[in-house]
């Protein structure tokens, strides 16, 4: 696609449920990031995929959070047993990665509300 696509744009769930957020990066971009932005807060790094390398999971806040990237393209961020503090906007970004300009292209985000 022309840009980074995220779905759903909005998700309301009950505490304790699992949620999946999807990111479709720009074609040809080898690097993919997930960030979390809570109300009035900055961008909290969650996880980083670069090509076929092992992902950098150093930002995942707990073992309830996991992410996959299949075929070097689409990524899914999964939050298990959601808690109210998980409510935030989850942003996905992609870039050309190694050897590229380093510029990140962001999706519109998935707004998660946990009741």
């Amino acid at each position, binding site marked *: 696609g022309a840009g980074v696509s995220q779905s759903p744009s909005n998700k309301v769930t009950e505490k304790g449920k699992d949620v999946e957020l999807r990111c479709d990066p720009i074609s040809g971009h080898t690097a993919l990031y997930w960030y979390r932005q809570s109300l009035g807060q900055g961008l909290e*790094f969650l996880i980083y995929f670069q090509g076929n390398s092992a992902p950098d999971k150093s930002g995942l806040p707990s073992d309830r959070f996991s992410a996959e990237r299949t075929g070097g393209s689409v990524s899914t961020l999964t939050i298990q047993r959601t808690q109210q503090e998980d409510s935030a906007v989850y942003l996905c970004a992609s870039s050309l990665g190694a050897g590229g300009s380093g510029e*990140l292209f962001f999706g519109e985000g998935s707004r998660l509300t946990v009741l």
Partner: protein
Amino acid sequence: AQSVTQPDIHITVSEGASLELRCNYSYGATPYLFWYVQSPGQGLQLLLKYFSGDTLVQGIKGFEAEFKRSQSSFNLRKPSVHWSDAAEYFCAVVPEGGFKTIFGAGTRLFVKA
């Protein structure tokens, strides 16, 4: 510890006044440096970036930033602010020799008439 610091949580300037947003980093001598803007209800957009060469870089919307190696700073400036510049501004760094982008906490800009 390695960090990207934006010391001002929010700044208010009058329309037409000049603007400077501060950013300091501690990721080696020659990181890649970026400024992004997030307008209300919109995604993040790149304003400008610095890789090497001329330490004063020009970006979109009339913004510029100056890389000062001695101060580990990359401050964003605009000579005359417009009401449409009200947004949140993020400084970001790709550390020297690395690929992961690290963001500062952001500075929210308010513009008063």
